[in-house]
């Protein structure tokens, strides 16, 4: 039984359509069956009622004028042809009158009812001629051993019902056939659209990230699937692109210190004699390699923070001692580099997070300010509560600032503005702050600083805005 079915039969759409066709066919069959039962049953009940009425008329005649009256009545009724079938039978079983040749051979049921087949006299040629027609009758004794047999030809009705039954069956069959046909059509359409998406997926898997799934703009679920699929591909492409960029940046940032180190060592080897210069070359190589290790450590830290491992150790705390400690650590540094340092902090706020990471973020923000603000400038560390209740730690400097267009970019890994390429550093400082902000659910806002000093400016204001801490019940 491993014979393969045509491909569209294996599709979900086809199976679903088939299932719904089957259910539809079943339900329409049930409805029609109900209609059939109701109409056929009603016809039968009407027939019985007509027979009973006629029987009542015959019995009335018998009560009024005895068996002769009945005989006359039947003769009268049958003379010009009648819808009814009559027989009057005497106690000996002989036929006295009627329009049938004899009592039909059929078993008499409860209440004298019987269904039978009879041959109609050729004289009644006006109706559809048949050798045998179906009829229903009642055989009742009316008194003194006399019996009367009254029946109705139900052949036409019966055949109508038969036709109805056949029509119902044919209709059900048609419903199933149409269901299957529409299943084929729908599933083909459906699988064509899915195939298009699958083809794109395969192409992308093969390395071509530029392909996108077709959209028909209908907004249906397949269209939505295409849209989501495309959005996912966009994100993937962006990530790939960024990764390539990071790769390029790593290469760029690592190549110069590595090359420097290599050249220095080569020189040290070549230069004969001078021990002191060789010593100096080696020491400088050590500095270079420390710088390289710094870059690697920063990459590692960012990855670990982004992985979110530290979230387990989050606690709720007042950040003011942290800010004060960090200010105290950096104040001499700022003064040493010719900056004026200011700190504004007050206790009583709470944030939720990792103390060590928050300190590290502040250190990086301050490092940045010290590095980029020209001597004579001002650096300020500030802890405050925003008007919406969120707690903010900010560092404001009077350096060159970051052009608005670059503000998002600088928090990405390795992005260093061209102007600062010659500055020492991994280019990872702000990325680390961004990673720390992200894991805390905090936003990292970059804006213009307080303004310029000595023709520098406009300065940079970098702020970590922590989300509100939910009060524990």
């Amino acid at each position, binding site marked *: 039984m491993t014979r393969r079915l045509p491909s569209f039969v294996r599709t979900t759409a086809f199976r679903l359509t088939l299932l719904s066709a089957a259910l539809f066919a079943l339900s329409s069959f049930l409805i029609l069956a109900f209609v059939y039962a109701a109409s056929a049953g009603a016809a039968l009940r009407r027939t019985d009622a007509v027979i009973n009425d006629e029987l009542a008329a015959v019995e009335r005649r018998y009560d009024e004028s005895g068996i002769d009256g009945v005989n006359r009545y039947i003769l009268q009724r049958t003379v010009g042809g009648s819808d009814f079938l009559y027989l009057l039978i005497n106690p000996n079983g002989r036929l006295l009158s009627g329009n049938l040749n004899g009592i039909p051979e059929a078993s008499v049921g409860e209440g004298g009812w019987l269904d039978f087949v009879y041959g109609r006299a050729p004289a009644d040629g006006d109706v559809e001629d048949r050798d045998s027609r179906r009829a229903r009758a009642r055989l009742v004794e009316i008194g003194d051993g006399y019996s009367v047999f009254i029946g109705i030809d139900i052949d036409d009705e019966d055949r109508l019902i038969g036709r109805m039954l056949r029509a119902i069956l044919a209709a059900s069959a048609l419903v199933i056939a149409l269901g299957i046909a529409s299943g084929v059509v729908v599933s083909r359409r459906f699988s064509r659209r899915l195939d298009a998406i699958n083809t794109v997926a395969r192409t992308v898997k093969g390395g071509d990230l530029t392909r996108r799934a077709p959209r028909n703009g209908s907004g249906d679920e397949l269209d939505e699937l295409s849209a989501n699929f495309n959005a996912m591909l966009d994100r993937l492409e962006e990530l790939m692109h960024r990764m390539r960029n990071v790769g390029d940046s790593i290469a760029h940032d690592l190549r110069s210190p590595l090359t420097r180190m290599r050249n220095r060592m080569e020189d040290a080897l070549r230069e004969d004699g001078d021990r002191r210069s060789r010593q100096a070359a080696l020491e400088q190589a050590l500095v270079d390699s420390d710088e390289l*290790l710094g870059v690697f450590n920063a990459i590692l830290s960012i990855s*670990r923070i982004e992985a979110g491992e530290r979230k387990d150790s989050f606690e709720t705390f007042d950040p003011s001692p942290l800010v004060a400690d960090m200010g105290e650590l950096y104040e001499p540094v700022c003064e040493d580099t010719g900056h004026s340092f200011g700190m504004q902090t007050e206790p009583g706020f709470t944030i939720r997070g990792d103390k060590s990471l928050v300190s*590290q973020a502040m250190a990086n923000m301050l490092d940045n300010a010290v590095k980029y603000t020209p001597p004579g400038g001002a650096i300020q560390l500030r802890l405050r509560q925003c008007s919406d209740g969120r707690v903010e730690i900010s560092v404001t400097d009077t350096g060159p600032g970051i052009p608005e267009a670059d503000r998002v970019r600088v928090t990405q890994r390795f992005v260093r503005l061209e102007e600062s390429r010659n500055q*020492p550093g991994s280019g990872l400082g702000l990325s680390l702050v961004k990673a720390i902000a992200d894991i805390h659910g905090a936003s990292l806002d970059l804006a213009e600083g307080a303004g310029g000093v000595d023709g520098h400016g406009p300065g940079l204001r970098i702020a970590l805005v922590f989300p509100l801490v939910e009060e524990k019940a």
Partner: protein
Amino acid sequence: MRVLVIEDDAEVAAYILKSLSEAGHIGTHADNGKDGLVMATSDDYDALVVDRMLPGPDGLTIIRTLRASDDHTPALILSALGDVDDRVKGLKAGGDDYLVKPFAAAELMARLEALTRRGGGGATAETELHVADLEMDLLSRTVRRAGQPIELQPREFRLLEYLMRNAGSVVTRTMLLENVWDYHFDPQTNVIDVHISRLRSKIDKPFDDALLHTVRGAGYRLQA
């Protein structure tokens, strides 16, 4: 001092042993956890250098086992994992210090010396520290040099206290950052150098002899 180095990486082990012997110490090597544990329990050492990842019982298990048997030989954990969490786990297991690979020999030596010092006289509560004519009173939190009082900020006091407790030995910038400020990351700027030079201007500048020395490529040393 006698140091047991439990480290499976042959090159790192050789580097440590060489650094130890250059500094005049005796290093013994075990290249797996099982041998290391046996050697640590059967011989007396002044300090242990234990790699975190080892064949056999790992570094943390070794230290935990030793501590459980009341062996409090100072232990320094080496690790390629640099996260604060890893550090905390290492210290919880009973390690006394934690150093992330790669590290400079000077850093390791400085830390080992600080560890053995701590293991020695550091346990008794001192109330006064002396280095040459520099005196520190831990109770009144005052500092005098050659009898003259010196005003120090609280952090400067802690910085000097740490240097005095480790007088004669090299302390690295990272050690100062960890022990005086409790920060376990490296700021990019030379924050420690600036603080040291401030301290130096207070305790050394007005006097003839310098006590606070810079050790190139390693850190600082307080010495007469």
